[in-house]
């Protein structure tokens, strides 16, 4: 199955790499930000860091639309951050399945991204049990990377 892995280029990427064993046997590609750390990834689309810039968010939305239309992954998995927002809403449009994994660094406070993608995620996982109280029934705790 073709799986799209979406994450920003620092710690969120590190978390995705920690989970890569789960994707073995599947065809994967990344949508991430350009940096020293993402250059070495095998199959990837590199975007400019969106941050909180609405104009860059609009550009990213357009780029990701074209990537998803061409690649047609069946499943999209993200460990954050904001790059997941346009991707998950477009996934809804393309009827692709999504799994969001909240960061290991989030013990009691949800991320802005988590709150925004929660309604459109098919599977929503947190890495600390206490964080479940901040999300709805869909959120699940199924262990953490450590």
């Amino acid at each position, binding site marked *: *199955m073709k*799986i799209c892995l979406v994450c*920003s*280029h*620092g*710690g*969120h990427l*590190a*978390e995705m*790499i*920690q*989970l890569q*064993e*789960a*994707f073995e046997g*599947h065809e994967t590609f990344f949508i991430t930000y350009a*940096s*020293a*750390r993402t*250059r*070495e990834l095998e199959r990837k689309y590199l975007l400019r*860091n969106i*941050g909180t810039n609405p104009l860059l968010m609009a550009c990213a939305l357009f780029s990701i639309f074209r990537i998803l239309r061409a690649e047609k992954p*069946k*499943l999209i*998995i993200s460990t954050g951050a904001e790059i997941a927002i346009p991707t998950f809403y477009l996934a809804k449009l393309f009827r692709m*399945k999504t*799994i969001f*994994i909240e960061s*290991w*660094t*989030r*013990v*009691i*406070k949800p*991320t*802005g991204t988590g709150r925004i993608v929660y309604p459109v995620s*098919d*599977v929503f*996982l947190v*890495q*600390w049990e206490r964080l479940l109280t901040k999300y709805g029934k869909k959120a699940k705790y*199924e*262990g*953490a*990377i*450590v």
Partner: protein
Amino acid sequence: MILVTVGMHTAGFERLIRKMDEVATTINEEIIMQIGHTKYTPRNAQYFQFTTAEELKALCHEARVVVTHGAMTILDALEQGTPVVVVPRLKRYKEVIDDHQLDFARELEKEGKVIAVYDVEELEGALKKPDLKPRELAKDRRLVNALKAYIARFEQN
């Protein structure tokens, strides 16, 4: 060698880099810093902006102790068996969007995985402590296994 890292965050982490640059003048040990987007230029310690994951891992392995913000480099260091001193980025200094790094550092400190330092004035003292060795890291298999199960389920539908 002491490795200092502050990650990719666009805010930089001047409070930590400035203090460690000061520590470099009094401590009898080499200090190497990954400063990221920090605007302050270190005068006393070696530094670079960013590097590859592989190079960072090698530096974490080589270091006696890794000093880092409350984020994923902690795991890089712990995987290498290197003790970690965590200085969480704080919202009040505009170093991060909220105080989640503070919650995270407190939690890992409680679990005996890291030494947490909340006031940079206490950094030098913490670095000189002999009992920095962390508890052995136990990987949690549950999340990888859960993901495999979800992926298998989506593959069938």
